[in-house]
């Protein structure tokens, strides 16, 4: 294991965050605060409690997940796409690093950044609403698993993408609808039966539901199923990645 290389990639990527502090940290905090002002304070005050939880608190786990997902996919994809775009990837490919080490460096950094922002959002949320976390360890488990899984998803998108259009396709077009329709702002039980059934095909529903359960012990689906789904998705991504490494897909061909 070339640990020096993993460290180098990790800190090189983290340094990029320092340079773009405004864009990477301040902007998600502002947008989340806006959600709380609009949904929490203005609209939320007219919405009754959901399963005994105030509306502002109810949406917090979903908002954290929304940010975590977009940030991790964005960081993970950009981190590996950028060297491809500028051509500096030659160095990575000609270094004595295995693909596993490359993934550890890039995905580790992307997940760290995503989690940092997630924690900041959690802090911001606690300024607006009363939050209690019923199962801190379960919460942490969902938090870390989601960050790692979606950073890895981003990494694969970054390898697959041939241009900026493709790079942004999934984060911009696919993730937001999944998050919004995955019960970030409502309980799927509020939906008509048909849409309830449709919602269960949305993987993000399981994430948000499980994460919310760790806060308030209320869930749309059994949290164990949530955990199985996210671990399953992680396994699928790992399989895809193994194939990419074996074939040199879009890297060494």
């Amino acid at each position, binding site marked *: 294991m*070339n*640990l*020096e*290389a993993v*460290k*180098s*990639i990790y800190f*090189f990527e983290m*340094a*990029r965050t320092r*340079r773009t502090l405004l864009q990477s940290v301040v902007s998600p905090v502002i947008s989340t605060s806006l959600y709380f002002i609009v949904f929490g304070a203005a609209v939320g005050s007219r919405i009754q409690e959901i399963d005994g939880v105030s509306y502002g608190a109810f949406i917090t786990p979903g908002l954290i997940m929304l940010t975590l997902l977009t940030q991790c996919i964005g960081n993970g994809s950009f981190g590996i796409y950028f*060297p491809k775009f*500028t*051509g*500096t990837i*030659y*160095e*990575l*490919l*000609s*270094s*004595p*690093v*295995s693909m596993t080490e490359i993934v550890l460096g890039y995905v580790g950094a992307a997940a760290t950044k995503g989690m940092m922002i997630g924690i900041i959002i959690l802090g911001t949320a606690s300024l607006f609403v009363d939050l209690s976390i019923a199962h801190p360890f379960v919460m942490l488990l969902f938090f870390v698993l989601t960050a790692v899984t979606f950073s890895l998803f981003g990494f694969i998108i970054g390898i697959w993408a041939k241009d900026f259009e493709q790079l942004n396709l999934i984060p911009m077009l696919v993730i937001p609808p999944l998050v919004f329709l995955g019960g970030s702002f409502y309980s799927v039980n509020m939906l008509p039966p048909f849409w309830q059934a449709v919602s269960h095909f949305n993987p993000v529903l399981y994430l948000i539901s499980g994460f919310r359960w760790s806060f308030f012990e209320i869930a749309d689906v059994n949290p164990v199923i949530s955990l199985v789904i996210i671990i399953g998705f992680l396994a699928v991504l790992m399989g895809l990645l193994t194939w990419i490494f074996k074939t*040199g897909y879009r890297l*060494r*061909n």
Partner: protein
Amino acid sequence: MAPIVSVSNLVKTYASGFQALKDVSLDIEEGEILALLGPNGAGKTTLISIICGIVNPTGGTVLVGGHDVVTDFRATRSIIGLVPQELTTDQFETVWNTVSFSRGLHGKKPDPAHIEKVLKDLSLFDKKDNMLRELSGGMKRRVLIAKALSHEPRVLFLDEPTAGVDVNLRKDMWKVVEKLRETGVTIILTTHYIEEAEEIADRVGVINGGKILLIEQKTELMKKLGRKQLRVELQEPLQDIPEALGSYDLTIGDGGGSLIYDYDTSGERTGITTLLTALAEAGIRLKDISTQQSSLEDIFVELVGARA
């Protein structure tokens, strides 16, 4: 001694179907400077990319320091340094960080003293805190070399290092190459500039159409393929070649002021002695005699032109 780089029957066919390398075999000895000459698209960069691990080979094997570049890539890539053809840099990084990053990637512990030395050798030290985008093209080229030297490689690949570089920088670079050679580093460079190969290389390889056309000691090559030209300046100009000299392959130069005789140095007899005797017998008086050896460029053009 076993060669430091050994390429056998290497083939590369890209997904598009383009065959960039067709059965290339080549040994590179430790400590030598090898220049690979070839026109654009000859396969030079593909060959280097496979040795360095950037591109997967379709067939054949490459050993570096006795290790296979595919199965034992850690051993091979940690002793290789690569300066790519394109000026690809992380625009927003500082010189110091990007060079230190390269060292880390190669699994070496941070060594500020070594990085400092490399930067000083390349006259980059006073720019160490500058962002790369602030540097000129020539300075960026130096940074790429510094990155390649950051992990103390034993084999250094320079892919067209002096393309678009001014004379001063080119001279500086040759000084660095000379210094590296003294420390025993093997250097492989590709170039369009034949004078570069002529000046610095120990051996010259010519590659075209994915094949190595020849690989030879530079001096041997010049001797073997070198044609020489004998120029005889005359006291009195001639209109035509005298009949007595008709059997020699002569041309008239300088508007009749000189005779030019082409001969092959590898031939058993050059024919110079008999020519000079014949000239004397024909009553032609000579003012001066000079010979000129064809350059690598002539050899190269001839070779590539003939087989392309």
